[in-house]
Structures are given as C-alpha cells and as structure tokens.
C-alpha cells in the first residue's frame, strides 16, 4: 500500500526535472506531498524497527527463560521423535484397540488390555475410545448448556431489544467476565471442590461457552431485521412474544452455526482441560507422553486427530446445510 506511492514518487521526481518551474501554489502542493510521503516512510521504518526489536527481544527472552536452550536442544529434536517410534507398526493398533501385546512384561507400557471397558461379557470399548467419548461428551454437554444460557442472555444484552439499560450493561459485563476468565482457573477451583473428574472440566468449559456464545449471539441479534418485530409490536405482542416470533426465527440458523463452531472449539478445550486434571483423553495423552509410552502416545494422537477432523468435517457440513455457503468457517478462537 505504501510502495506504489513510493514508486509513483520516484517517477515524479525524475519527471519534474524536465518541466519548467512550478508556480507558487504548485510548489506548496509539492512540498506538502513530499512531507507527507517522508513522514509516511519514517513511520514505516519506525514501525519496522520497533517490530524487529519486539520480535528479537521476545525470542531472546523466550530462549533465555526456557529450561532448554534452542540451539542446544535443536540437534536433539529428532531424538525425541525417534523415541516415539514403537517396536513394530502393529503396536499402535494394539494400543488403540486394547489388544494384548507380545511384549507385555507387566509394566504400564504394554498393559493395553487392562484398560478395556466392558459393555457386556465379551464386548468391550477400548480405553482410549472410552476416554475420547468422555471428552466429546464434556464438549457436547458444555456446548448445549452454554447454548441454552447464552440464548437466554443474549436478548437481554442486545441494543435493539432494549429492556433496561442497566440490565443490558450488567448482562454484557457478566458475559465479558465469563469469557475472559481463564478456563484453567475455573477448572482448578472446581477440581479443588470436587476432586478429580470430568465435572470440573465441564463446568469450566460451560462457563466460558456461555460468555463466548452470548457475545456472538447478541451481535447476531443486533443485526437482525427489525421489521418483523415492529409488526408484532404494532399487533400488541409483549416482549417475549416479539422476541420469540420475530427475532428467534431469523437468528436461529446463525445461532446454530455458531453453536456448532463452538462445539469444535470445545472438543479441543476439553482435551486441554483434561490434560491438567479434568480426565478424558487429554489426561491419558499427557500421562503417556510423560511416561514415554510411545505406542500409547501414537494411538492417542491418531485417535484424537481422527476425531477432531471428523468433528470439524461434520460440523462444517451441518453448518453449510443450516446457513448455506456463507458458513462461518473460522477455525477457533475466543
């Protein structure tokens, strides 16, 4: 955006020399323009210098405060990857489906069948599938409850459905705090209250979801077409009737789309919260990596990867069906 100007300038610089002297007004214009261009270039250079300093400082600081130094660790980087290679290719599948391993020496590393969750006498669910289902359920329940609560709150926070200014202000700040509050603190607090388990993770993800969805929802509501609402108002509908019959049908597809997007995010979030004590697949992954169980780690990564891709694809397909091609395909985020 800047360089075309500069290119233009260099052209004009060379050309002006061929022209007779400018008039008084012309010179003023030229001077102003040169000053402007100069200032612009100065800003660009200053910005670049500042940015380079910030970036260099950041990297230096990160390296200096890290436990291992980047250049020391880099040659050993692939050692770690080689530590991830299991004894044979089948080990990964054995770990994934809890089949007995020929290397079983009674240690935690090869005790795949012990994790089986029996549904009937013979039919079992492999450990990691069970944990993955647990994590997915945490995400689903949190999304559902967050959707419900966000749905109820968003109409109170929308400017165009003004209920009461103070109520709106309060609801908005409330949702902001829910959203910005670090999930990990909520999880940690409820872990202290309930001891380990999935419920703290669920509460943490739910609380964040309420705030995040509530914000997106009220923005959708504020962009809704108000003519239907005016019609209902003219017919004497009360607030609830107006919202329910004029706003909700308009915004529901977008709400559902955002809800699905949030579900994708929540699957990841509940995995992470799981890793810090909330149970589910995240915890299994953290344990197996820190214990150096290569086959188990690979099995979990494989399962997690497949699940996340499947969830993303499913949700993208559903969103496309609900809101059409303009589905909000926007990765993850706060």
């Amino acid at each position, binding site marked *: *955006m800047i360089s075309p100007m500069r290119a233009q300038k260099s052209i004009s610089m060379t050309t002006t020399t061929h022209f007779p002297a400018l008039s008084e007004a012309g010179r003023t214009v030229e001077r102003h323009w040169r000053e402007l261009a100069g200032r612009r270039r100065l800003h660009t250079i200053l910005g670049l210098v500042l940015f380079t300093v910030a970036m260099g400082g950041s990297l230096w600081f990160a390296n200096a405060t890290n436990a291992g130094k980047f250049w020391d660790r880099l040659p050993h980087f692939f050692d770690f990857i080689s530590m991830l290679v299991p004894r044979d290719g089948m080990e990964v599948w054995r770990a994934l489906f809890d089949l007995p391993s020929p290397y079983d020496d009674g240690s935690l590393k090869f005790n795949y069948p012990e994790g089986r969750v029996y549904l009937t006498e013979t039919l079992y669910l492999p450990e990691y599938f069970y944990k993955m289902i647990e994590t997915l359920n945490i995400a689903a329940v949190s999304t559902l409850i967050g959707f419900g609560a966000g749905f109820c709150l968003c109409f109170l926070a929308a400017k165009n459905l003004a209920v009461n200014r103070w109520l709106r202000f309060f609801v908005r700040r409330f949702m902001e705090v829910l959203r910005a509050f670090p999930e*990990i603190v909520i999880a940690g607090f409820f872990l202290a209250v309930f001891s380990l388990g999935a*419920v703290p993770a*669920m509460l943490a993800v739910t609380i964040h979801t309420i705030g995040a969805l509530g914000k997106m929802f009220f923005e959708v509501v504020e962009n809704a077409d108000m003519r239907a609402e005016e019609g209902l108002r003219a017919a004497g509908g009360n607030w609830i009737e107006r919202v329910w019959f004029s706003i909700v049908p308009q915004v529901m597809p977008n709400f559902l789309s955002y809800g699905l997007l949030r579900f994708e995010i929540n699957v990841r979030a509940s995995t992470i919260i799981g890793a810090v004590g909330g149970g589910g697949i995240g915890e299994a992954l953290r344990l197996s990596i820190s214990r150096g169980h290569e086959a188990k780690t690979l099995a979990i990564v494989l399962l997690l990867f497949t699940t996340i891709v499947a969830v993303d694809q499913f949700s993208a397909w559903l969103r496309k069906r609900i809101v059409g091609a303009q589905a909000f395909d926007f*990765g993850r985020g706060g």
Partner: protein
Amino acid sequence: MSTLSTAEVDEIAARHVAAFSGSLRHRVTGWLLAAGIVAYLAFAWWFFAIGTVFAGGNWDIAGNYLADWVSYEVRPDVAFGDNHLEISYPRFSPLGDDPQPGWVTTESAEVEVTKAGAGGSGGGMQSSSGSFLGTVGGKPAPTGGADAADAPDGPALPELVREEAVVRAMVEIGAATLDIRPGQVVATRGGDELVLDIRRNESVDAAGPLPAWASQRAPGEKVILRFGFAGRAEIEDDEVKIRHRFWGWENFLFDTRSPFWGKPIGEVMTLVAFGERIDPLMSNAALAWNNVVNNAEWQHGDVWLKLLQTIVMAFAGTVLATALAFPLAFAAARNIMPNRIANQLLKRLFDFLRSVDMLIWALFFTRAFGPGPLAGISAIFFTDTGTFGKLYSETLENIDDKQREGVRSVGASPALVQRYGVVPQILPVFLSQSLYFWESNTRSATIIGAVGAGGIGLKLWEAMRTNQDWENVAYMVVLILIVVFVFDGFSSAIRHRLMGGGLQRG
C-alpha cells in the same frame, strides 16, 4: 385493498386447518428435538454421575477458598497449660514474627509453670503447644528443637518456675468474643453466651444447649464455632484454634522480613525519598523495589516474568505463524498457484497442523525443548500456521481478479503481479485475522502453560494445587484479565483501522 375482519380470518382458518397448523413433521420436530436434548442431558447426568459428584463436593471448603481470593486469615492458637495459657502464631503469620494484634487482649499474672528444663525459658512464641502435650503425668516433655539447642547435654528435667504468664485471653472475632481461661472458654455472640468447660486433654463440655453457630459432633469432642466471614474457632481439649479473617491482600507490597513492612504508605514514601539508608549497600528506593519484587508471599518478580513469558509466547507464536503462512497460502491458493498437487499438499498440511491440537504440540515441544516459553511459542506457531494457512488461502481464493489482470496487462512479472495486484487487497484482511488470533492466543497461552509450556499458566496451576494460595491465584487472574482486556482493545482498535470499521471477525 380489501380488509379481512377477525371473524373472516377465523373462518378461513377453520376451512383450511391443515394449512394453518403446519405439517405433522413441522409440528413434531421441535418437540422431538427438545425431548432428544433432555434425554441426552439425562444420559450425561448418569454418565458423569453429576448428582453424586455434586453431593460429594466439598462445599464448605469451596466457600473458604472463595473467601481466600480477597481476604486472609490470622491464625492464633491458644494452648491450655495447667494454670496459664500459651498463645502462638504460625511461623509465617501475615502479622510478622511477633504479632500483637489489637483484637487479642491478654491478662498476665505470676503463676507456677512447669518447664521442661532450666534452659527452656523461651517465651510463648517459640515453644509450640507440643511441649505442653508432653507434660501429662509429670513426665519430661519431648523437647523441641529450640530447647534441645539450649540444653544440649542430657535430657532436661521438669522444673517448677514462677513467672509471668498469660492467664486470660480475650479474642474478638467480628461481633463475637471469646473469653479464654485455663479450663474454661466463654463465647459470646449477639445475645447468646456459650460456656464451655474444658478438662485438659480429656473433654470439652458445653454448660448449656449449643446455639446455632456452634457445633459438636459428640459430647466431649471439640466444639466448632462459626462466626461467618469474620472467622471461626475450634475449641479442643488442649487448645483453641482461632481463624480470624480480614478483607484484603495481606502484605501485598512488603513481606514481613522487609524493613518497610507494616509502615503506613506515607512513612514508606518519606523513607524512600528522604530517609537515611537502611541498607548501606543501596538506596532506599532500590531496597524498596527489591523488597517488592522479591516479596516471598506474592512473588511479584516471578509472576511478572511468567506473565511476560505468556505475552511473548502469544506474540512470537502468532508473528512466526503469520510469516510462514503468508507465502505458503499463496502456493496453496488455487487461483494463484496453478499446480493442483502443490495446492492439495499444502492444504492437507494446514489441516494436519490445525487438527493436531495445540495441546499435543505443546506436550511434544515441552519434551523437545524442556518446559518454558520456547515450547509454547512452537505450539502456537505450529497450530496457527495451519489455521492461518487455511484462512489466508481461502481469502486469496476469493479475491477480486480485476486488479491482478490490470497489473498483468502492463507486463509485470508474476512476482510483481502478486505484489501489486493481490497483496494490497488481502493485507488488511490477513492482518486483521492475525490480530484476532493474537488476542485469542493470549488466552490459549495461559492454558497450554499449565501442561509445561511455560508462562503464567504453570504458576497459576501450582498456586491452585497447593490450595493455600488462592489470593495469589486471584492476583494472577487479575493480571491476566488486564492483559487480555488491554490486548483485546488494542487489537480491535487496529483491526477497526485496518478494516475501516466494517467487518469485525475476519
């Protein structure tokens, strides 16, 4: 235009019931959906045993933890001797080494005290209640470390000494008062008075019925008095444990070892500005700053360092990801790079980087680089390269082709076509997307920190795990919230400028 009266509308509705009531599918879907959701939630209730978990929750403790966020407790113990009392405070009491709080008043008298040895004449502060427990039946007390140091040769003999000792302690906890004497505790709160007779090391007995704020599991056992927020007291047969709660973050600036501790703000200011050097090696201002940064309780220096790490993780990770995704996105976009295989390969790479969760990357890099911000930067870098690559290449595929054609028509080289035909269109969008992810990464960096990827997350997690330092958790949360809000405002301000105030979410 003809107008229908209500009666006419009703008549039409009556003739075409089917048209007005909607199809069966239409009517039933909503209810089925609602029933499905309720059924699923019921299943989840069972699956996670939510009822049991909630019933088994430590709600008492939860209240205490929440109170700890914004308040602190002072915990004096009053131990019963034969005929006197011994008041002690825990070692790292927020009131310093020798607390004399105004809400504890004592009466002293000269009494005969059984001492473990001639050397062990330390004040009440040093000898713990343990030395009194040991004197039952006139046997020598198992001497503590302090006493052993004083009398290193041979076991000390019990000895009767006449000395000044506390014989009565009055403790005010909010609106309640405890009147503690050897053998008797009288608690008053509002109009209620509770008299407790203590037979030392045997039993605690209430003289009358217990008021609502007192509880006792079985006759003779300890009595717990609850005074709401102000605190509580446990009256046991050998000591009274008092927990008095105060609002605020105690010793936030200076800990009890600091020479500035306990001084009013004005005095500290005067000392810093004009006072004589307390430490000959440095000025008072440097000393004060040093004391604040190295505050043992709040660990300001460490917290700030870790917070900076988190900020740096989000910043450097996002910048690196942007820098790498930018050229790759051009190669991945169908309309820019005509090579289908390269397009597909890069797009699958982006999907891979994005779908292997940030958590997995964080755990991997923590193993590779050791715990610290490098792991966090790498995790954010990898995940976001995938995300940005996907977003950027999709943006590129939706650009307006006319500008490119214009630049190409004047004979520009392919690189210049991209530079002047494409980049000006997409740069604001790209930057806006990166900025949006920068602020969201600040939040993510907190969380992945807890698995070892450096930053404040780990510190936060450690503070929570001890269950003692909830006020530190609150402090860090406040800092994180400030950072998140500031970055939020900063990034949305830039995004508004870039996008001309239009589209907000990229």
